[in-house]
């Protein structure tokens, strides 16, 4: 960071103000849809930030992070359907199960490197996916409806949309602060050192495997938190929430925003999900003079624009949007 007033800091500050003030706007206009879209963005941003911790700083590319979203979600869903609706039970259970799963996956996967690591994390995520499909007691393929959101002992009412939004935003802020503190600590230095040169780190006496495993578990736990919130947001869990394309989406969010930068994943998540909502409208407007009444239909094909857009960002903006803003090359 060169100064407080460079373009990148301004964009991040504007984004944070936008996120914090959004419910004021939607409260005034009564636009519940926008609030719902942004709740989803905030929840998935937690997952992207957690993925960035291992991917951007640790060099561990997990192609199975959707599994933790699923585990966190199913922890809430299953407990709720068994009559345990207290969030003070649900959230700790969701986090603990995610942590245990990450511990098992990490212990086995961290023996491999590069593409093999990508694929073995995918393999474990697929296993969990099929476990969820096989849970016939909890809806199997069709999923499970959650009739009551997590109860927080009467302190917060999560079924109030604005309260829930701020609840998620607070968790996102806590996650970002945690990641910031982590990567700048001695622990984070070891993780980043192991990414650049694992052998050298071991040679100077750091048991890097243990450090990387702990980092992997922290990331999985945070992603499980995102899943527990997502289940509360949609009032529904199904195997689809941990389909492998969701893991791909998370990687896209992180790379798009900028790997290994603190706010990159947040920028990436907002960009991707806002584009998903806005592109159909924009295309519809642009195509209006050409196609007239057919313009609305042209908007349906927004992925035709998003796909090449992603490709162009990869080709011409190394380091993602964050790298573009700061004008710096990826390290």
């Amino acid at each position, binding site marked *: 960071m060169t100064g407080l007033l460079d373009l990148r800091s301004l964009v991040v500050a504007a984004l944070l103000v936008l996120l914090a003030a959004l419910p004021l706007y939607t409260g005034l206009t009564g636009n519940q849809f926008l609030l719902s879209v942004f709740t989803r963005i905030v929840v998935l941003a937690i997952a992207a930030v957690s993925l960035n911790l291992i991917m951007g700083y640790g060099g561990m590319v997990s192609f199975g992070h959707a599994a933790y979203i699923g585990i966190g979600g199913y922890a809430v869903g299953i407990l709720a359907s068994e009559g345990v609706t207290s969030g003070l039970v649900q959230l700790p259970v969701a986090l603990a199960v995610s942590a245990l799963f990450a511990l098992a996956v990490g212990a086995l996967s961290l023996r491999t490197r590069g*593409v*093999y690591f990508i*694929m073995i994390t995918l*393999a474990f995520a697929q*296993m969990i996916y099929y476990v969820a499909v096989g849970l016939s007691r909890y809806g199997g393929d069709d999923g499970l409806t959650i009739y009551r959101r997590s109860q927080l002992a009467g302190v917060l009412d999560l079924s109030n949309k604005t309260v829930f939004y701020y609840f998620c935003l607070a968790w996102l802020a806590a996650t970002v602060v945690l990641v910031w503190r982590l990567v700048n600590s001695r622990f984070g230095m070891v993780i980043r050192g192991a990414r650049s040169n694992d052998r050298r780190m071991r040679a100077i006496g750091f048991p890097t495997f243990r450090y990387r495993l702990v980092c992997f578990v922290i990331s999985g736990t945070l992603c499980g938190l995102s899943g527990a919130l997502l289940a509360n947001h949609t009032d529904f869990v199904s195997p689809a929430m941990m389909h492998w394309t969701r893991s791909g989406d998370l990687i896209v969010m992180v790379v798009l925003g900028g790997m290994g930068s603190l706010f990159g994943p947040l920028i990436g998540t907002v960009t991707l999900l806002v584009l998903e909502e806005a592109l159909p409208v924009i295309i519809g407007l642009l195509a209006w003079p050409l196609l007239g009444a057919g313009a609305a239909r042209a908007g349906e*094909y*927004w992925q035709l624009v998003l*796909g090449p857009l992603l*490709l162009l960002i990869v080709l011409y903006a190394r380091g993602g949007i964050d790298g573009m803003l700061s004008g710096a090359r990826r390290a």
Partner: protein
Amino acid sequence: MLLVLEQCLNGLQLGLLLFLLAAGLTLVFGIMDLVNLAHGSLYMIGAYFAATFTALTGSFLAGALLALGATLLVGMSVEVVALRRLYGRDHLDHVLGTFGLILFFNELVRLIWGPAGLTVPLPDWLNTAVPVMPGLLYPTYRIAIIAMSLLVALLLYLLVMRTRLGMLIRAGASNREMVGALGVNIQLLYTLVFGLGAALAGLAGLMQAPILTVAIGMGENILILAFVVIIIGGIGSIRGAFIASILVGLADTLGRGFLPELFKLVVSPAAAAAAAPALSSMLIYLIMAAVLVLRPEGLFPAANR
């Protein structure tokens, strides 16, 4: 016993089909070091072309040939226009870029062919069954798929091991810079290899077209299986891909066919009915995880890369 044999044939057929996909994927991966998630899109495009050209020409064979050529052209143009610029980049850039291509191709197909699935009718002479053993009738078309895939595998082996182009491909897999330094037109070689991979994927797609419904997104699920195959086999190794694809095809088919029965011998029928389908879907991922834990470079790692 007959059922086991029939399932083995089904597994073999799935395995060989996976090999056609995995061979292209592993070549592109091993030689250009490119992670191509859009490989499944080429499989889908092959199937769509087959549906269109079969309807246009009225003959499945002519349609298949035209579809093969068209997929080859699509593959080579994608390489020239987009993917060529991704060589030498980080694997993550490949994942992001080719993920964008998947979105693009799925949407393009929806624009051209519409959202509904297509079916490809089989000609009468293939739509029969032949006795492979006393008491076991097996569809002719599936036998034709097995024979065709084996033939292609053999041709691929001859191409890679016995021709000059194959020599360059193998050289490119073991040391790219050196091949370039020796004056080989590496750009052309890459385009050809990518086209070859695309044609193989298209072939797999068009052969599946009469069996399955041709639909958007059909490439994504089989792509994951193909990735599992090349990881088990070892990246860059065609021999590994061949053995791993047969292994995966057989394990997947036999697991789905017989695990529920096996489970009933051990646990109660209700528990077996609940657990077996999940476990049989998981089987190949369990195999992959086990292989990676025991041999982190796959079963047949390509020699010292």
